[in-house]
Each structure stands twice: as C-alpha cells, then as structure tokens.
C-alpha cells in the first residue's frame, strides 16, 4: 500500500515568528493526508504551530558532485564578510 503513495517532506514552525524547519518525511496519498500524517507523526509533543508539506519530487537539490564548483570559490573571498573591513573609530554605531 505505502509503496504506491508518494513521499512528502515535512516542514514545521515550532513557534510564531520562527522559520519552518525540515523535520522529516512521510508517505501519503494526497496533500490532505500528508498534512494529517504530519500532524500525527511530527507534532505529538507540541513541536509545532504550523506545518508545510511538499512532494519530495518537487524539491530540487544541489548535486554533491558539484560541491567543488558550487562552494569552493567562495572560500578565498573574505572581503564578502563585513568583518573583513576595519571600522573607523569615528563610526559609533555599527
């Protein structure tokens, strides 16, 4: 039965004002069932106040094999961090 049901990723906001965080995945036949399954599986101990479910197939992930070209070039660009710059003493609030 479950093998016919698509996989869904579950995101939960633990408190108002916080971001939704990925908490896991589950199987469900449709979005309504996915929402209820998420409620039953992931919010039993008051973990959340809001749930997002997304079909896993709709999530496009970066390829680990491309990690070199994706992330390494940022390594030597320290000037992209604000801490790279000396703040003049005259600037009081920054």
């Amino acid at each position, binding site marked *: *039965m*479950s093998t016919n049901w698509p996989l869904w990723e579950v995101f939960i906001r633990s408190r108002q004002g916080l971001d939704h965080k990925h908490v896991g995945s*589950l199987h469900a036949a449709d979005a309504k069932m996915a929402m*209820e*399954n998420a409620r*039953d599986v992931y919010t*039993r101990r008051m973990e959340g106040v809001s749930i997002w479910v997304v079909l896993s197939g709709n999530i496009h992930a970066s390829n680990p094999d491309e990690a070199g070209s994706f992330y390494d070039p940022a390594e030597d660009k320290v000037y992209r961090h604000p801490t790279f710059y000396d703040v003049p003493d005259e600037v009081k609030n920054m």
Partner: protein
Amino acid sequence: MTTEAHTTDLQRYVLHLADTHLVLAQRLGEWCGHGPVLEQDIALTNIGLDLLGQSTTLYQYAATLLNDGRTEDDLAFMRREHEYTNVLLVEQPNGDFGVTVARQFYFDVFQRLFLKGLANSKDEALAGMAEKALKEVTYHLKWSSEWVIRLGDGTDESHARMQKALNDLWMYTGELTTPTAYETALAEAGYIPNLASLRELWLEQVKQVITEATLVMPAADAWMQQGGKTGRHTEHLGYILTDMQYLQRTYPGMKW
C-alpha cells in the same frame, strides 16, 4: 426526583461513559504495530490515547462519586463483563481497516454532537471534561470522515469493503441515541444532553459523508441492537477484558 437518586444515576452514567472510552481505546490499541502504514499506525494509537486520557478523567470522577474506596484502576481492571456498560459499537472487532474506520466514524459523529451538549452540563466536572475532549474529537472526526470518503470513493475493492463495514456496524448505532432510564433522568435534570434529540443530527451528518463517499446510507429505520449500556454485551467484550485485565487479575495491585 431527589438529589440522592441523581447521584446514583450520575455514578452509573459516568461509569458508562468511561467504559465506552476505555473499550474503544483498547480496540484502537490493538492496531499498534499492525497499522496499514506507519503514519496510520500512529494516527490510530493517537486517537486511542486521546480516548484513554478521557476515560482516565472519567474513572477518576466516577471513583470520587462512588466514594467506596475503589480507585480509577480498580474500576477499569477489576470490574466484570456485565458490570461494564460501554455501548456495543465500541466493542466490535477491528476487522479490516474499513471496519475500524466505520466504527470510529459512527462514534466520532455521535461523540462530537454529544460533547457539544455536555459542555453545557450543570455538572462542572462533566462540562469541563467535554470542553477539553471536544478539540480532540473534532480531529478524530476529520480523520475518520476523510477515510470514509477516501475508501468509499477509492477503488472498487475499497468501495465494497467500506460499504460492507458501514452496513455490518449499522445495527449498533441505534444504541448511541437511545437513552436508558438513567440517561433520561439525567437529561431531564440538565446533566446531559437529550440523546434522542441528537438522532436526527447524527443521521444528517453521517449521510453527508456517506453520500460524498459515493456510498449508500443504511436504512434509518433498521432494527437496532441494544443492551451495552445496561451491561448486556456481545460476545466480544469478554475477550477484550480478559486481555486488558490479565495483569491486574494475575498480580492484584501490581504497579510498574
């Protein structure tokens, strides 16, 4: 009617409610580890645990009302089959998933209507319990209604099984809205809602879901089983109690 008579009726009634909740919780607990998928296994036991929590509150209240030294555990584990007064519907076996869904659906529609009325009870303990339980039961009803629709409006096989489950359990639904003498007395005194008055609403809400599920509503005037609320049960209850009470009967007073 004297206050004393009300007390006796209330004792019987609270025990009846507690038994109904406990037996259904026990039935749902049987699914633990056997659900069709992990997610529904958890959903079923969540519902079971909600009902178990409600029954705990009720047994505690019953123990207070009885005031004869028995605790809520004694009431749950040391009473016999004919002393149990749960409705017949909840002791029916789990069957396939469709039967469990049908049993839950019939019960949830009733319980939600009933708790809404009970929230206005002149008995503060019952009103408080009803208010708390209402949120839980609203979710139970959503869950069971959607499963009736999903299975009814699903494949040919799920449709046929759902219809059979609804038909087979139908004769146990009349008892829900047929008051016993103690219920009639309590309703007249403002302790509990008038059960018979819930019948039309119950039929209407059940019909709405069954129709959306492309299923056929069983006949409203069909013959109905009675007896659970006065201690006359189907053969199934004895097996449930044997299983549930085994430990306390074998090792009385055991705690862990």
